[in-house]
């Protein structure tokens, strides 16, 4: 939500997208997979019905959209290089998400499964620490911004 505009077109880069409509898993699977692959791995981040036992009604995701897309694309490129996987896709959804809906989908295609597991794990772990997206949780008695994970040392401004 750069500059407070709620509406935003879908943003896309070579391997990534930021969307407001439900994430199209079948479409991503089709884009991702190729006859050279032997394995594809999908991480599907789902909106949970509770946070530490407190009942969640729904979530709202906001982002520094243009920067978030840049950071996601940077992660995608890094994963392709570091883990030698053939292809990756990262899609994050913004706006109001209901319980059970997918907020983030990461797909990794590779000739061999070990690299796919490593790349997928690294992508979701790193995305959660460095991609500028924030989540507000709505409970029955109010709403709070979710505690984020601390930024990695090299990113913080005041150390």
């Amino acid at each position, binding site marked *: *939500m*750069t*500059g*407070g505009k709620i509406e935003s077109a879908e943003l896309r880069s070579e391997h990534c997208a930021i969307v407001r409509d439900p994430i199209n898993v079948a479409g991503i699977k089709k884009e991702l997979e190729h006859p050279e692959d032997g394995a594809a791995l999908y991480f599907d*981040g*789902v*909106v*949970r019905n509770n946070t530490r036992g407190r009942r969640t009604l729904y979530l709202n*995701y*906001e*982002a*520094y959209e*243009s*920067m*978030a897309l*840049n950071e996601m694309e940077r992660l995608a490129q890094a994963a392709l290089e570091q883990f030698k996987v053939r292809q990756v896709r990262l899609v*994050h959804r913004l706006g109001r998400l209901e319980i059970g809906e997918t*907020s*983030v989908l990461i797909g990794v295609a590779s000739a061999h499964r070990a690299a796919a597991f490593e790349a997928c794990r690294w992508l*979701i772990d790193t*995305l*959660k*620490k*460095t*991609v*500028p*997206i*924030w*989540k*507000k949780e709505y409970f029955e008695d109010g709403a709070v*911004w*979710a*505690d*984020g*994970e*601390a*930024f990695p040392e090299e*990113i*913080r*401004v*005041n150390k």
Partner: protein
Amino acid sequence: MRVKVLLFGQLKDIIGRQEDLLELEPGAKLATVMTHYAERYPKFQGLSKSIACSLNQEYAQGTAMLQEGDEVGLLPPVSGGRS
């Protein structure tokens, strides 16, 4: 010189705005922007150790020099993804 400052997540609530235009002296750095808010908003001050800054949509350090028309982002710890 003027820089655009974007505020996100709880920082947006603390400052009460999503976007500011700041008039800064020549030689201002990213740290100057941090100090600007820390002096005016005690809650911002309290969070400042956990905040990251971006300069023109890339993470940057407090020592980064600002220029006319730069876009600065003040970013609380991120919470995208799931679980």
